[in-house]
């Protein structure tokens, strides 16, 4: 034996293996374990699926009560035919895991504050935020409630869980999803709690903006003073076209929330001005302001066939893998098709053989902050109703990769968890001790609403199903084969007095507490109206005659609803194709109002030649936000610039990021009176600027930016907007970038940079249901699958797929049916 060469060679081998078997840190990112990752028998190559490969399979699962047949169609949509309901959810869980395992795991990790565990201390800010907000706490409440009170839901979620875990059990280590290999961690077992955590995440996504907005509004008010604040952040929307038409008479209110005495000075702070700002650490991105949606149903009186048509397109973050997964579930009790959430049983937005339903976000404020007074730094007691009250301590242990655990000690108070305290502050919390009260913390059987909607046969079933719904508040639209259409705003809504909860509230006694939850019967709703349609697009659901306060105007986008209602009112003899056209409509109703307002205050002759050319481009624009339109970009940049000229001076000088006033505020002002005092630049003492001055200035400034865009060939709307569907990790190579699609904020086709119609569905309630739909993604979550982003281009082009919804005998022989997966219990 040649000892020295042997030792040398072995050392080099072992050294090289070691280097290739650890994650290397390059710059800010960590590589995968390169040797493992590149190994063709272990690493990413195993995830490269063979094109044209089939999906036929036979699976034995002991947990099943009977046998289940799944047929996959050409778009890889599974059609599940089961002998009983629990087996169907078992198989749904199995298929979710088979095609979306990593995403399900990742999304619940985000929700439960467990990102640091896989990605290291960098993610601690996000994890701490979600832990302290009470995400895990809320999921625990729901789990406990369902386990104790709802055997059917318990069995449903457990069957789903068993399905996910049955898939995990037969999954070989080399076949785990690509992202686990890339980020170097392992899948773990599913549990019912994870399903509830996922649903908590949806509650956060759709109502959690208040967690940031309430702080920001409080600071903005403190900075501007209440009077100016109330002018710039007015809740009065002149052009509002609410979900329930103006002039509707509402039932007598059963609750009468009263503003506490002294609130004008103590809470609204009408007298105080300009407190100083101080700084602290960052916080995760707040949920997108544009999280919203459109839905509508038209009655047979307005359609060509005489049967209702229902449309729903939820606007959410556009991600790969998509939030949605299409599925048909057929059992002896029901037959349902639609978009499901990987992570939860049942169909969330869809239709069955009797009716269809869809949702949009209600936008109502259901999350508030209360300022606490702790006795001392131990935070064991807080002042409430005249005495020191004991706060219980909730411990949240955050595991951190390559580092010691971080323990969050959270004081649990009458209001809820003390989110901000001496240990945790963010940029906006300003050193305050703040408890958060949120309907999301309450136990909720939300999954039962969908369970029941999946089985609903008529209007009464629909009302019964949604009456259980608590958080996030939604507008449930409905249409049935029998000809009924309806819409109802449903959720656990706080009976608020005017502006209650817009700002941080005093928490030292119960006078600012919620004075009740509005009874379901008083929630806004409408059935079979004479106008022949119901609709919602996140606007305020009711006008000011409704007896309860809804929340700040910034939570209720105004213009999409106007567009939808205008079009539905004039359209007749409608067909599903017309509805597709409407869902993808790019008309800019905001610009229809704002462009004349700009022209009213503009003096073209005094503009520079370049600015004149840009104004010409804007004025010749057809008001459609189409992909190739230059006028759209010019209008947007000019409008933003004019807004900045008007508001910028008021905002200047704040160290904190302030909330920008809503666009309608300025438009309404411009149309109302030309002597708008806020137009004056308060920084120029010797001159009083008017709206005319600010419009001229705004256009000239915008022109500079527009010339740059023109030079870079980015003036066309789609290239300027650059819509992308991002992978959940935001890795560009796994995302679809720069899609050729129009639309935008205030547009029915609400597609912005990485946000928009995440599932488009049109259901024609004919005897044999005629449905169309798609989402910008693909049924497989695997970046190595040809089904990873199958629908993206079609979606961008505004096209639809005909959805295959058939009884088993007919589906088997359908030409689009491609594969069969058999599930057997022995």
């Amino acid at each position: 034996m040649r000892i020295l060469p042997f030792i040398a060679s072995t050392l080099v081998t072992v050294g090289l293996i070691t280097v290739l078997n650890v994650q290397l840190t390059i710059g800010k990112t960590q590589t995968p374990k390169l040797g493992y990752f590149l190994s063709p028998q272990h690493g990413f190559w195993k995830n490269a699926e063979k094109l044209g490969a089939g999906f036929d399979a036979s699976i034995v699962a002991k947990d099943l009560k009977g046998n289940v047949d799944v047929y996959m169609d050409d778009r890889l949509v599974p059609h599940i035919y089961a002998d009983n309901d629990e087996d169907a959810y078992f198989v749904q869980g199995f298929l979710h895991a088979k095609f979306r395992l990593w995403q399900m795991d990742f999304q619940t990790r985000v929700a439960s504050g467990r990102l640091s565990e896989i990605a290291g201390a960098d993610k601690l800010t996000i994890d701490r935020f979600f832990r302290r907000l009470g995400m895990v706490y809320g999921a625990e409440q729901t789990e406990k409630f369902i386990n104790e009170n709802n055997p059917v839901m318990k069995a449903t979620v457990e069957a789903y869980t068993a399905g996910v875990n049955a898939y995990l059990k037969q999954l070989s280590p080399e076949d785990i999803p690509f992202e686990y290999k890339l980020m170097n961690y392992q899948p773990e077992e599913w549990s019912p709690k994870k399903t509830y955590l996922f649903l908590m995440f949806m509650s956060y996504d759709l109502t959690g903006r208040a967690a940031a907005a309430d702080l920001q509004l409080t600071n903005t008010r403190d900075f501007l003073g209440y009077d100016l604040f109330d002018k710039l952040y007015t809740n009065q929307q002149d052009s509002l076209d609410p979900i329930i038409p103006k002039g509707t008479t509402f039932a007598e209110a059963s609750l009468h929330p009263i503003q506490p005495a002294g609130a004008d000075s103590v809470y609204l702070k009408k007298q105080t001005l300009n407190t100083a700002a101080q700084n602290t650490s960052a916080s995760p991105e707040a949920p997108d302001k544009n999280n919203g949606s459109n839905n509508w149903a038209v009655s047979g009186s307005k359609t060509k066939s005489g049967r209702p048509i229902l449309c729903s397109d939820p606007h959410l973050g556009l991600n790969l893998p998509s939030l949605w997964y299409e599925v048909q579930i057929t059992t002896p009790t029901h037959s349902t098709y639609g978009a499901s959430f990987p992570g939860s049983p049942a169909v969330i937005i869809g239709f069955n053989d009797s009716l269809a339903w869809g949702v949009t976000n209600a936008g109502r404020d259901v999350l508030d902050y209360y300022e606490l007074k702790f006795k001392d730094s131990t935070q064991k007691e807080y002042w409430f109703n005249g005495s020191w009250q004991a706060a219980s301590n909730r411990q949240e242990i955050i595991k951190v990769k390559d580092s010691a655990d971080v323990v969050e000690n959270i004081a649990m108070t009458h209001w809820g968890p003390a989110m901000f305290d001496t240990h945790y502050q963010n940029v906006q919390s300003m050193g305050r001790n703040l408890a958060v009260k949120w309907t999301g913390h309450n136990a909720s059987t939300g999954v039962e609403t969908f369970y029941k909607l999946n089985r609903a046969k008529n209007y009464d079933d629909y009302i019964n199903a949604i009456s259980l719904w608590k958080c996030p508040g939604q507008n449930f639209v409905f249409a049935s084969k029998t000809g009924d259409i309806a819409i109802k705003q449903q959720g656990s809504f706080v009976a608020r007095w005017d502006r209650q909860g817009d700002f941080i509230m005093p928490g030292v006694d119960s006078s600012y507490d919620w004075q009740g939850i509005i009874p379901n019967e008083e929630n806004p709703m409408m059935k079979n109206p004479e106008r022949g349609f119901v609709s919602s697009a996140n606007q305020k659901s009711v006008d000011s005659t409704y007896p309860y306060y809804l929340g700040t105007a910034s939570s209720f986008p105004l213009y999409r609803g106007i567009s939808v209602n205008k079009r539905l009112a004039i359209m007749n003899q409608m067909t599903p194709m017309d509805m597709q056209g409407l869902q993808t409509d790019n008309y800019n109703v905001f610009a229809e109002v704002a462009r004349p307002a700009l022209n009213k205050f503009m003096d073209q002759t005094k503009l520079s030649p370049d600015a004149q050319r840009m104004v010409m481009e804007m004025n010749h624009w057809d008001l459609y936000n189409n992909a190739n339109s230059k006028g759209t970009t010019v209008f947007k940049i000019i409008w933003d610039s004019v807004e900045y000229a008007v508001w910028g001076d008021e905002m200047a000088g704040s160290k904190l990021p302030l909330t920008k006033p809503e666009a309608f505020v300025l438009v309404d002002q411009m149309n109302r009176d030309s002597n708008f005092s806020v137009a004056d630049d308060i920084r120029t003492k010797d001159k009083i600027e008017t709206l005319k001055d600010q419009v001229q200035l705004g256009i000239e400034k915008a022109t500079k930016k527009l010339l740059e865009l023109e030079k870079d060939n980015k003036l066309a709307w789609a290239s300027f907007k650059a819509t992308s569907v991002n992978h959940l990790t935001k890795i560009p190579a796994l995302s679809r970038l720069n899609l050729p699609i129009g639309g935008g904020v205030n547009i029915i086709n609400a597609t912005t940079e990485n946000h928009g119609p995440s599932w488009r569905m049109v259901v024609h309630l004919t005897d044999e249901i005629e449905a169309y739909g798609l989402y910008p993604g693909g049924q497989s979550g695997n970046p190595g699958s040809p089904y990873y982003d199958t629908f993206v281009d079609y979606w961008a082009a505004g096209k639809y797929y005909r959805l295959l919804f058939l009884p088993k005998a007919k589906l088997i022989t359908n030409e689009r049916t491609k594969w069969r997966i058999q599930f057997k219990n022995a």
Partner: protein
Amino acid sequence: MKSNQSAIIKFLMATIVSALLAYAIGIYGNLPWWSFVISNFIVAIAIDQKPWKAFISGALGVGLLWLTLALMIDQQNGHLLSTKVANILPLKGSTTALIAITAFVGFILGGLSSLSGSYVRKAK
């Protein structure tokens, strides 16, 4: 001439056996991805060759195995995943570079482990 011939047979044997064993051991996903270094090591002890020859046969055995597997998978996948990975790793989207690196990892580790094995047998 005869010894030359047997040397060539030995070389080919060592190369093929290394490749076959590396493939067989690689089927077991529970074993670490580098398990083939053990089989290569043993093959190099069993089939006595000069160190540099042992290195080449071990390197070619695993390197060609990995090259073939990667090429086949990539072809059947229509370069879908390799293109994405070649953009995540700093390879500017070159799938050829990605396949070359894959093969090189197999080549160098395969060679080194066989080299170590060969020194066990070789007297000074």
